[in-house]
Structure formats: C-alpha cells, structure tokens
C-alpha cells in the first residue's frame, strides 16, 4: 500500500471524514470535516465513497510527498498550491504538493483516490482535536497510508462551482428564540481569533436575553448560543453536546460549509428563514453534489 509523507504540517492539518455518530449521549460530538460539502465533492471527484477520509488544512496549508502515482483533488478554499481546485489531478511518484496560505476561506481539503487509510476510532477516521479521539493533528514526517475507498472512476471537473456565498448566515429559530429581540438580526459581528472547531466565537453588540437561568439541555451543530456576556458562539463540529446557555437561532445545514470557511475577522450577520426554506437550500446543494 502506498503512502503520502507529510513534509510540513501547516497550521492545523487533520484527517477527517463525515464524522462519528451515535456517541453524543456520552458527550462525544460528531466532529468530521468543517466543510463537509468540500470533502464530499473531493471524494466524488476522485471516485471515492463520499465518506472516505481526507486531509483538512486550516488557514495555512501543508506540504506532502507522494510515494506512488496518486489521483487527488483539492477542494474548498484556494491555498495557493498551483493546481486547479475541484479537479482530479494525477500526482506522480516522488512528486511534492506544497500548499500555502489561504487566498480565500479557512479550509482546503486534499482528497486522494482510495481515501486516507488510517485506523478508525468508534467508526470514524475523523480527528476530534480537543479530546484526541481519532488521533492528533499531523506532524512533519507522518506517513498517511492510502486506503481502499475508491469505488468508481474519477470524475471530470464540474463546469461551475457552487459558490460558498457571502451574504448573511441563514438561521432557523432556536429553542429560546422568543427570549431574544430582533436585535440579533440587526447586529453585525466579526469572527474572533479564539474560534476553533469547537465553536466560532463572535464579537459585536452584546445581546440581552430574557431566558434567565435555564436547565442544561442538548445542543445541536450550528446552534447560536449566548452566554451571559452577550457575545454569541456558534457551536461547531467539535461542539459540546449539552449546554445551559439560551439559543436564539441555529445555522441551517446548507450554510454549514460557510461556517467551515469563515476566518478570524470575517464579518457575520444573520438572516431568519423557515425550516422549509432551509431544506430547499439543502436540496439545491445536494443536487449540485450528485451532478458530479
């Protein structure tokens, strides 16, 4: 089985798939790719099952050397690798891929034909960085085995890329929506430097809540929670499974890919949509993916 050698690890480079499900009642969130749309697209392009493990790079890319001829696709943001994005490309044995700093969003995915064949932990290859479940971020010298997840021929590059979008983040009502005023939808925020895969911390006008003390309850992916200081936090892929802060809104599934591409200092506003609208937007995204 051939391998990929990590020459330099970038800022935070991890192995991810679509996540680890069925463990939230033990306090373990799904983790998985921060931009699952980009990971799925990359896998489809190289002919993999869409849940195959790939490499997620954050803000600053990594460098890799390929031991054997390998079909790859880079998806997500442009990390100045000198290769076309969203396009299957064959790397030759001994060839090096060097990714640089991002020119667009926060994350770029390296998907390889066959997938990354690391051992699974609780049914998933994804790294839960904060707890260490599934491993740790990559280091120089690590060897990534290529797996056996190729299920058909690589695809042709799509003619149009579905843009990640830059308007307001679309949200549906959260469980405590009625405890907040419309101020939430009029306020402009920026993404704080303290954001990570656990949560996107926003800075801006402090939100007041009439929720008062509430019992700890379950918290889903994309929940906007407002702690006592009024600065919202969007719970992300490595989120806590329960929490006691009120939640005015929840980012829609179709905009999760945008969460994965938000960078520190990016502006954020919110727009309220219905569940029906949210599901239609998700359908459009799925339609594009399955057109690959």
């Amino acid at each position, binding site marked *: 089985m051939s391998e990929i050698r990590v020459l330099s690890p970038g800022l935070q480079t991890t192995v991810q798939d679509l996540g680890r499900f*069925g463990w939230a009642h033990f306090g373990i969130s*799904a983790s998985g790719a921060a931009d699952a749309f980009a990971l799925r697209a990359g896998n489809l392009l190289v002919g993999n099952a869409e849940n195959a493990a790939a490499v997620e790079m954050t803000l600053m890319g990594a460098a890799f050397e390929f031991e054997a001829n390998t079909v790859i696709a880079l998806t997500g943001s442009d990390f100045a690798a000198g290769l076309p994005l969203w396009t299957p490309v064959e790397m030759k044995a001994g060839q090096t891929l060097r990714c640089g700093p991002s020119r667009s969003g926060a994350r770029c995915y390296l998907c390889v034909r066959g997938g990354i064949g690391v051992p699974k932990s609780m049914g998933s290859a994804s790294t839960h960085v904060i707890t260490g479940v599934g491993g740790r971020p990559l280091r120089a010298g690590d060897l990534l085995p290529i797996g056996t997840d190729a299920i058909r021929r690589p695809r042709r590059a799509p003619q149009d890329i579905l843009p990640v979008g830059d308007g307001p983040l679309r949200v549906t009502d959260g469980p405590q929506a009625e405890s907040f005023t419309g101020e939430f939808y009029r306020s402009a925020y920026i993404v704080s430097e303290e954001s990570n895969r656990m949560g996107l911390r926003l800075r801006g006008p402090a939100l007041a809540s009439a929720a008062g003390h509430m019992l700890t*309850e379950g918290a*889903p*992916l994309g929940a906007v929670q407002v702690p006592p200081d009024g600065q919202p936090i969007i719970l992300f892929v490595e989120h806590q499974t*329960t929490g006691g802060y009120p*939640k005015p809104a929840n980012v*829609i599934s179709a905009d999760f890919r945008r969460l994965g591409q938000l960078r520190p200092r990016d502006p954020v506003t919110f727009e309220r949509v219905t569940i029906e609208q949210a599901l239609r937007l*998700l359908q459009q995204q*799925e339609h594009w993916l399955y057109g690959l």
Partner: protein
Amino acid sequence: MTIRPASDRSLHVSFGDRIDAASYAAVARLTHGLLGAREVLNLHPAYASVLIDFDPRRYTHERIEALVHACLAGPPPAGQEPRHVEIAVKFGGESGPDLEDVARHTGLSPEGVIERFTAAVYEVYFVGFSTCFPYLGGLPAELATPRLSAPRKHVPEGSVAIGGPQAGVYPLASPGGWRLIGHTPLRLFDPQSVPPPLLRMGDRVRFVAEASR
C-alpha cells in the same frame, strides 16, 4: 411535553423545566427507546429533555416526532442494569481547592462536607458537556453551593466538583465554573478506548474518601 425543532436537523423534546423524578424517567425512557433507531443520528439526553439529531435529507421533523410518540406510548424499553461504581477521592488541599469555600457557604466543617458528600448515593442523570462528563443527581441539599462567578480557565482532569445542586467529575482538563472539592485518579475517559465510558446514564456512584486531607 413540548416538541419543537431545535434546528433543520434536530428535534427538541422537553418534559418541563425542573429537575424531578417524573421528567427524568421520561428522559431515560425516550433515550433507551431511541438508541439504535435507524432514524436517529445522535441523542442528547439532559435533566428534563432529549435532543434528537437526524439526517434532514432522509427524514422530517414530523417523522421523528411520530417516533417519539410511539416510543413513549409503547412498553418501557429494558434499560441497562445500573452499575455501582465507587470513586476514590482525595478531598481538600490542592486536590480540592474549594472545599473550604463550600464549608463556609454551607455552614459545615470541611469534615462535615466530606462526611455528607460520601454518605450519599448518586445517580448518573446523563453524560454530556465536553466528553463523558457525568451529571450526578443526589447531592444532599445542604451541600448545594453556587458556581464560581468567573469560571476557572483550567480545571484538572479528575476534579470532583459541586455546581449548584449537582455534582460531577471532570473527565478531561477543561475550563469550568464548578466548586472543586476533591480529586480522583480514576480515568473516566480514555480517547484510545471504545465507549461505553466508565459512567453511563442510570449508573449509581459513591464517593469514598481516599485519605484524610
């Protein structure tokens, strides 16, 4: 019972806003009944609510809601046998920097706090927060102590703590606002091993004082 979407891919089922035996029984029943259901991606039980995650490309909120009603109307599922777990704790000093504060707040001596804390039998109401954190019911009412006004940035792994009317053990080093009264060397969570973790919903816990302060 109130049921409402928490997001476009999850349903929030609430049995009230109090910690009491009836709500908790409903939580336990729904959780055990839905574990392994093909429609369910993840379950987040809590004191009086269950959050259910599902794949919105395959299922609707209505379908999941029907599943909830069917589960609660059916015969109670066979829950797991509760296990009885003893947790050895070193109380006070560096192991429990807030023991003196808890004593002051409760009007007891530190020894009195330890005596009452170790005499009680706790039930794991649910496991959540950040990785295998057991929320324990059964803290003697006289030991309830408010959380710190500003959370600590670093609570060591294995810290045994009181937060309001609840008790808990920190499975990993993390930030936290509960009052730390002791420390256990027992590992509640090991990233290399496969769950279930040491403590599961419904398990009974006793704390045993390891050595005097």
